[in-house]
């Protein structure tokens, strides 16, 4: 890891180990987050993303490693001394305090002057439209309002780094979308560093400057949403990101006459595939996004006959579930195209935009 770069980072995690009762949950993890960056930690449940966030917050014991925030080594600092604000999935509002007192609790603990507390609370309340709710108790608020209060509580702390632990998971779909936009706006307005944990890829893709996809306590890929979506580094990332999921075709790589992917009796020419390294023969998996399957033969692309089994209209577009030679896959099309179950389509695969993975699951 480049030390010079770490010194500039808003949050820097170095060689972090976290263990519970003998089991290592996070193993020598390093991560740098730039000032003002919106970083999303994404992964399935149990991948260690929340653990990592809690470690950054100082809420759990780490076994080894260091954590730096804003150029300070805060590995052993109290959560409150780290210059962070945190928002939790269950809101974690203090049930016996009014919204106002919830917001001001941390400031009161810190012993700030009353006027200063009032200013900050008022500012946060204005920003989050909490003004009319200040005298209420959490039990008198809706889920969305509660989460806004929770965000406000992080806001008033006037810190450089915000930590979000699945903040929208307890909300219904509509509220989730609204609040997601609000968080994005907030980030644009404040320009703070935000570290955001979620298992929802839509949140990740829409909010993040960079996404860290985690699995088994290890960051699988750390890159921009576009990079992650289009050029996943391994099968796990490829399969985890995207809905419907990426289609995988099992086969082998044949280099006899230039790179060719062989699956059953189909031979797909990989001449246009951008290999990251010189390819080697052997078993391989070819992955296609549903939208990269065309209903007509694309120029220079291999064509497959496929039978339609289910059509899912989704408004703007539609997903077709089809099958070729026992291989089920999905296709995303514009909804104007009418297709019915039973139709036989000729589909073309855009090899240039596909992802090829070797036997070890790594991108080729």
């Amino acid at each position, binding site marked *: 890891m480049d030390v010079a770069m770490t010194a500039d980072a808003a949050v820097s995690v170095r060689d972090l180990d976290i263990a519970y009762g003998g089991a290592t949950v996070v193993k020598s993890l390093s991560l740098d987050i730039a000032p003002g960056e919106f970083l999303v930690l994404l992964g399935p449940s149990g991948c260690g993303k929340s653990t990592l966030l*809690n470690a950054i*917050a*100082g*809420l759990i014991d780490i076994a080894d490693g260091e954590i730096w925030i804003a150029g300070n080594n805060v590995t052993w600092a*109290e*959560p*409150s*001394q780290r210059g*962070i*604000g*945190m928002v*939790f*999935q*269950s*809101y*974690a*509002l*203090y*049930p*016996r*305090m009014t919204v106002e007192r919830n917001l001001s*609790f*941390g400031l009161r*603990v*810190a012993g700030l002057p009353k006027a200063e507390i009032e200013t900050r609370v008022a500012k946060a309340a204005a920003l989050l439209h909490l003004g009319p709710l200040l005298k209420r108790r959490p039990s008198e608020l809706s889920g969305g309002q509660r989460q806004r209060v*929770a965000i406000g*509580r*992080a806001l008033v*702390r006037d810190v450089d780094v915000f930590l979000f*632990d699945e903040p929208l998971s307890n909300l219904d779909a509509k509220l989730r979308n609204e609040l997601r936009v609000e968080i994005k706006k907030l980030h644009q307005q404040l320009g703070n560093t935000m570290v955001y944990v979620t298992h929802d890829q839509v949140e990740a893709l829409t909010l993040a400057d960079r996404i860290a996809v985690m699995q088994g306590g290890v960051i699988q890929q750390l890159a921009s949403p576009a990079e992650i979506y289009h050029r996943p580094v391994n099968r796990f990332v490829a399969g985890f990101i995207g809905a419907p999921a990426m289609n995988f075709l099992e086969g082998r790589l044949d280099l006899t006459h230039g790179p060719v992917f062989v699956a059953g009796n189909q031979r797909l020419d990989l001449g246009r595939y951008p290999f990251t390294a010189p390819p080697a023969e052997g078993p391989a998996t070819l992955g296609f996004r549903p939208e990269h399957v065309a209903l007509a033969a694309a120029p220079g692309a291999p064509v497959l006959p496929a039978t339609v089994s289910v059509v899912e209209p989704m408004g703007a577009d539609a997903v077709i579930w089809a099958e070729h030679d026992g291989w089920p896959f999905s296709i995303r099309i514009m909804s104007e195209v009418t297709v019915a179950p039973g139709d036989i389509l000729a589909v073309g695969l855009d090899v240039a935009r596909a992802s090829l993975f070797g036997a070890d699951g790594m991108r080729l």
Partner: protein
Amino acid sequence: MAAPQNPRGPRPAGVTVGRVGLYGFLAISAAFFLLPAYVMVVTSLKSMDEIRLGAIFAWPAHFDLSAWLTAWSGACTGLTCNGIGVGFWNSVKITVLSVAFSVIIGAINGYALSFWRPAGAKIVFGLLMLGAFLPFQIFIYPLVRGFAAIGIADSLAGIVLVHVLFGLPLVTLLFRNYYAAIPVELFKAARVDGAGFWRIFLEVILPMSTPMVVVASIFQTTGIWNDFLFGLVFAGRDNLPMTVQLNNIVNTTTGERFYNVNMAATMLAAAVPLVIYFVSGRWFVRGIAAGAVKG
């Protein structure tokens, strides 16, 4: 936990065999539970001559409240004929102090064990629970010696300390379980807000603990108010609780027994916990529903 007023189960559909059976079962159960109370009340209202007839269920031939009066202020124990009333304020003193301290300490223990888990938390809790399962008579000699050594033998401090010592396992257990049901994120949020051990306890956790404070207080009040042996051994002569007087009246070996006075005295001695149950029974159920049974 659903609020009690939420609809549960199918709406009762008029008079059915099931409903009749249900009320029948409840009525029989109620009779079983009320029978002893009935016998105690009617016995306390009879004269000794009528009691010697041996019909314990019979309605009193004529109401005689004198046994109650005697029990409260006239029954003799040894040379003093002051009834059990004299010990009343001692019992109140002992119970209030013991309940207050044991609930406060138990709540802090439960909080520390549940949220902070300092080194050895499991061991101390395990030993505490083990202590709750020992026959407590065995503690008397060592405690007497220890209390004498630190100068609180035969004192209010001594008896209160004993009750706190032996109430600790149960109260700690209750609060620990209750706090286990509180989302840990709340605690984390307070930590991020910079609150320390006491601040989180006093401003965040304790205000949420009312239901369990009620439950723990009721449990403790019942146990401490009804205690006899510890009061006798540790309270000292000036602080003897009511139960010691009750025992002197009820438990005489070679003296006469006035059953009407005994029954009245017994009920008077049980009055305080009974009233607490009648008044706070609803809170008790709610408090337990609010957390004691979550695991």
